[in-house]
């Protein structure tokens, strides 16, 4: 067997096992008295993070190998809602605001954009954010904006010197998001990611997807 296929299969299996583990933990949480929840939550949060990491690896692997993430009509509001719901449990201290208008309709791979948003939210959490706002505008393409109140990007990241926030994460985050944006390039316009720090503190990331 080729090594790369083995890696692919192992990651895939990891992801499935983590999914089962998560389901079991959630089931346990629902049976255990509330006073003990604090003990179980770190386990749940770490499993969640592991699962996100494997999801990221798997997606990167796939994007390189196959490139067949089908695109379809999609609603950024829904995708953001979904990303928030899948991370809420992991980051109970973060207050989310989904300001993406419900009627904005776009065209992208929902799986990929969902993963990009989950990754961005995880990055924010690791940067100590307690508040995350998502918004979007549609103007010759779609721009999804995430703003947080964490400590913002290191100057080195903004200079493009390194692609990691190095706060316990795998370091794959921004790289993956760039890959996802590029995956949504049209023949003349590339999808892109822009990172900056807000004047009042906190980070801002804009994910731009051209009309496809």
């Amino acid at each position, binding site marked *: 067997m080729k090594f790369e296929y083995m890696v692919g299969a192992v990651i895939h299996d990891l992801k499935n096992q983590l999914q089962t583990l998560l389901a079991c933990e959630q089931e346990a949480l629902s049976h255990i008295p509330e006073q003990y929840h604090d003990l179980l939550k770190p386990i749940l949060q770490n499993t969640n993070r592991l699962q996100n990491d494997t999801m990221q690896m798997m997606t990167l692997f*796939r994007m390189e190998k196959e490139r*067949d993430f089908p695109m379809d009509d999609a609603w950024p509001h829904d995708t953001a*809602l979904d990303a928030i*719901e899948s991370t809420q449990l992991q980051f109970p201290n973060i207050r989310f605001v989904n300001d993406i208008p419900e009627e904005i309709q776009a065209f992208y791979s929902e*799986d990929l954009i*969902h993963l990009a948003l989950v990754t961005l939210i995880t990055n924010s959490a690791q940067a100590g954010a307690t508040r995350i706002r998502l918004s979007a505008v549609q103007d010759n393409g779609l721009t999804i904006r995430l703003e947080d109140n964490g400590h913002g990007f290191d100057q080195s990241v903004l200079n493009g010197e390194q692609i990691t926030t190095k706060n316990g994460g795998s370091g794959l985050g921004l790289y993956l998001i760039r890959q996802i944006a590029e995956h949504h390039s049209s023949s003349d316009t590339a999808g892109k990611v822009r990172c900056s720090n807000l004047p009042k503190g906190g980070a801002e990331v804009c994910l731009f997807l051209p009309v496809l």
Partner: protein
Amino acid sequence: MPPSKPSLDNLRLLVIDDMVEARSSIKRMATELGAKRIDTAMDGDQATELIRNNDYDLILSDYNLGKGRDGQQVLEEARYSGRLRYDSVFVMITGENAADMVMGALEYEPDAYLTKPITMGMLGQRLWRIFEIRRQLSPLYQAMNRRQQDKAIELANSLLLEMPRMLGPITRILGPLYMHKEEYNNAIRVYSSLLNEHKVSWARLGQAICLHHLGDSLSAIALLKDILRSHPRYVQCYDWMARIYLSMGDADYALQLLQKAASISPKAVLRQSELGQLADRQQNWEVAANAWEQVVRLGRHSCYKNAESYFRFADAANQLIESDRVTYKRLSDKVARALNEVLNDFSQQPAIQLRSWLAQGRLFKSCAQPDKARHALLMAEQLYHKMEHPAAGDTIALSAALVQSGNHVKAKELLQAMEAIDERDQLMQELDEAVIRQHSDETNARGVSLYEAGDLFAAMRAFDDAISHQEAGISVLLNAIQVRVSIAQGKQCDPQLRQSLIVQCRPLFQRIGAIASTDERYDRYHRLRASFTRLLQEAAQ
């Protein structure tokens, strides 16, 4: 905007998942969303059964349903058999990215894919979007439900002008409608207007199919290849490339393409059956046997189940087994099991059972198990004689098997009794007259020894058997007369029997016709003629 939570209040739901936790979790969410009537199924068979007997508004199905059929097959069968209303919603839930799954045919795609883990907000929001589209396009969906195609086309075109945002959903309906009416130029036009905005694979596939129908097969192939470059698992592109190459006369390449499609999506019955047919045609028995085996296996509990696929499997496999019965030992076991299954599952259809016995006969012959082969053929014969109105094909099939196993006599009897058709005449030519003659002679000899032993009635049966063949010689005919005369001359003979024996002699004399006085059989003929006349006179007195 309406509230984002859809109410599933009045809807009938079906939740399909093989994992009990997943099933109950989805059911719980649906209940929270207002659903009151929810059925659940744990596998494809159960789901299909429920869909057959109920009218569902919304089906939420996991893609992977364990060992049996997957969610896509449940969907295809529901739509194929017409058991699912056009506007019923089918949502496919996947453990993976949607990209991992094999897409169904254009008309068999689900309304939405949801990736696990599913949260309630996500489910509610997605369902709301789908029902919103249904609501805005409701006249169109109603026309589709009633199969009013012309009206649907008219509505779709006017809705396109009113609601440009609905371009995608409307094109999905309008494209196939135009194709169905063979208005390919119109179909290309609607697909193009969508493609001007987004490069969606299904619309490109639609265009390619239309190009092919309009005669531009080369452009169609170029387009299909291009779709596959960006979407390599879009198996339908292989299906269509295969059909196009076949139409251009390149059956070998078409076969390769279909094999490729089947390797990506091995569970699709219709594709496997297309592959089996092409492989049969190309006499690629290895591929054919495998494809038909899949059709049998996958179709077992579905609306695609039919006896024909079992026989195609047996026939293709038999070609291999004949060539090398050791290597294909396991295959022959499989064929034997499949043919037995036919006997059980089609027990009310003697014609199918007959074919199964005949196929078993061929199989055992190839496996060098002559006893079993003979038994199967015997069962086939018995069954045939119990059939009230055997079709010409049944008679031909049985006769051919009889000829193959050297039973020319029985074959001839069957063939003579049926009306003349081409196959019959062909088969008649294959009959070995010498063998039949020999049989007639042997039976005659048996009759003679019975006659000599004094068992006149048994002798008569043997002679009658011998003279049932046109080739029976004059001596044999004379024997048949003689045994009748002997019985009739007996003192104990019942007058009625005597009468009928005499009557039976007449046509026999006619068959002999005139005999020259130089013929060595003349004397015997003459004596019998005299005895016969005497009997006639006695009877008249």
